[in-house]
């Protein structure tokens, strides 16, 4: 008779319309509990696992999840699946370290739960839903809980397993709020992508714990809305730089205008005031220009350092670097002031006993 009842329950679970999925998770839980109560353990385990597998908006509440895990523990004990029962009980302890099964459960179930409590790390992590923060100015908060006061380290790690920032190192006494301001260890905003808050035990001296071997992980996804930044200016082209060593071409370029100007100045009276008796002043100036050109010619001889050109090039480079740094700084400010969206996922606990 009971078998027919459970078969009917399973069949009805399979036929629950997709549009009623949210309701069906709790319905599955109720059906699983009922199956346990009528000792149809195989079907009950299947129903409870399905209820626990629901995700997103359809997922069970924390209380519902705890209830499902407790009944699944009891179901697995009843099915003589002790190892599986221990794993489920640890999940329950991870979810809520302070959860206690009531006395209506058989002593064997209470014993399994107590064993799980003894061997499980009994730490929990709770995160808010999707959170938008301004990196450096606001924080993303998670709550670590434990009833055994372990010493732990909490790191934000990237997908490659490298530590982005250590956000907590100390003892969890009951619970502790851990805040992350969205910046890495260097004060920069990390790139968008998948990260993880990883909590691991450490011994009292600050190193990794030798005996307790567990890792609590909270996956988080970081998204950055597009920020309007200014492109960095390109480096000045070679054509803008002056030669820093003299060459023949430069020498000739210095000489030619001087000679032309010198000759022109000397000849100006002939062009402008033909027939006038010109003074010697033109010879002074024309001669000075020509001599200056000759001096410039020799200052440009091949291989000769040209300090003026070196200074000019240095100024050109420094101006470009200053502009680039200023724009990079402004872009960084804009990036910092833009909001970062942090989407936490479901936490998981990995122990040495986790298959």
């Amino acid at each position, binding site marked *: 008779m009971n078998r027919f009842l459970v078969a009917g329950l399973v069949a009805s679970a399979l036929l629950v319309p997709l549009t009623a999925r949210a309701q069906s998770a709790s319905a599955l839980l109720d059906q699983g509990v009922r199956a346990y109560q009528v000792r149809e353990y195989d079907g009950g385990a299947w129903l409870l696992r399905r209820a626990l597998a629901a995700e997103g908006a359809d997922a069970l509440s924390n209380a519902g999840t705890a209830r499902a895990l407790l009944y699944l523990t009891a179901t697995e004990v009843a099915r003589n699946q002790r190892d599986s029962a221990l794993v489920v009980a640890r999940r329950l302890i991870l979810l809520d370290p302070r959860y206690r099964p009531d006395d209506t459960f058989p002593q064997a179930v209470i014993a399994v739960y107590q064993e799980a409590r003894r061997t499980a790390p009994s730490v929990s992590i709770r995160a808010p839903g999707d959170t938008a923060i301004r990196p450096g100015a606001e924080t993303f908060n998670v709550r670590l809980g434990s009833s055994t006061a372990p010493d732990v380290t909490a790191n934000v790690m990237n997908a490659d397993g490298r530590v982005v920032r250590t956000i907590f190192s100390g003892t969890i006494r009951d619970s502790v709020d851990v805040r992350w301001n969205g910046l890495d260890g260097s004060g920069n905003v990390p790139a968008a992508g998948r990260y993880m808050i990883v909590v691991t035990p450490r011994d009292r001296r600050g190193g990794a714990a030798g005996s307790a071997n567990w890792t609590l992980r909270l996956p988080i996804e970081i998204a950055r809305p597009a920020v309007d930044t200014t492109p960095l200016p390109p480096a000045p082209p070679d054509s803008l730089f002056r030669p820093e060593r003299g060459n023949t071409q430069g020498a000739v370029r210095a000489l030619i205008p001087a000679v032309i100007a010198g000759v022109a100045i000397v000849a100006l009276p002939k062009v402008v005031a033909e027939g006038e008796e010109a003074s010697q002043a033109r010879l002074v100036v024309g001669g000075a220009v020509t001599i*200056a050109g000759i001096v410039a010619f020799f*200052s440009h001889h091949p291989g000769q350092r040209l300090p003026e050109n070196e200074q*000019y090039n240095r100024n050109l480079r420094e101006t470009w670097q200053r502009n680039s740094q200023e724009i990079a700084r402004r872009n960084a400010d804009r990036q910092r002031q833009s909001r970062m969206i942090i989407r936490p996922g479901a936490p998981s606990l990995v122990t040495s006993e986790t298959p």
Partner: protein
Amino acid sequence: MKLLLGALLGLALLPAQVRAQGEGRRLHFTVAGIAGQQIVQSHVDNVTDRLTGPLLGAEGMLISDRLMVRVRYGEGRIKPEAGSTTEARDIVSGEALFGVRATPWLSLWVGPSARAYTIGESDQRWLVWSGRASARGALVPGRMQTYVELWGVFSGSVGNPAIKAGGRGARGGLEMRFGAQSSFWGRLGYGIESLHADGLRETAEALTLSIVFGLPQ
């Protein structure tokens, strides 16, 4: 003269793609103090006098990417050579020119210039409108450069009542920066202008030394 004016007009109509490649794209200015010696040869009918004397003046320029404005003022007293009966003259001269940088090395200018002096009770004033072409070349970039400027009168008058006048002129020289980063330049210049009207001709030469603040064009 017509040839010179035609050349100036042709340069002024250079296509727009001939652009200045100046280092700075912003407005800047230069100011200069000028000191020098001027030599004037004055011909009235067939009488020629030669006068010399010091010259003091100032110059200012406003320079944008392509356009420029230049004003210059000078004054001095010139005296005849020993033995001459000609009177000394107090001379003032000035100009206000508007220029465009046709190429990085060539600028074109237009504007009025005047030269006036007093002989006894009478004033003599030359007022001319001229077009100019000014070329520059760097001997040591940023440190030393040379320039030559040629100009021709396309309209002018002298005296009261005014009679038509013409003429031409030129100047050239050398500019040197006092230090690699200095804002001050020194300029050694030579200028000559020859103005003429009916029965009159004046040729003035000047050797000048200037201190310029700011980067010359």
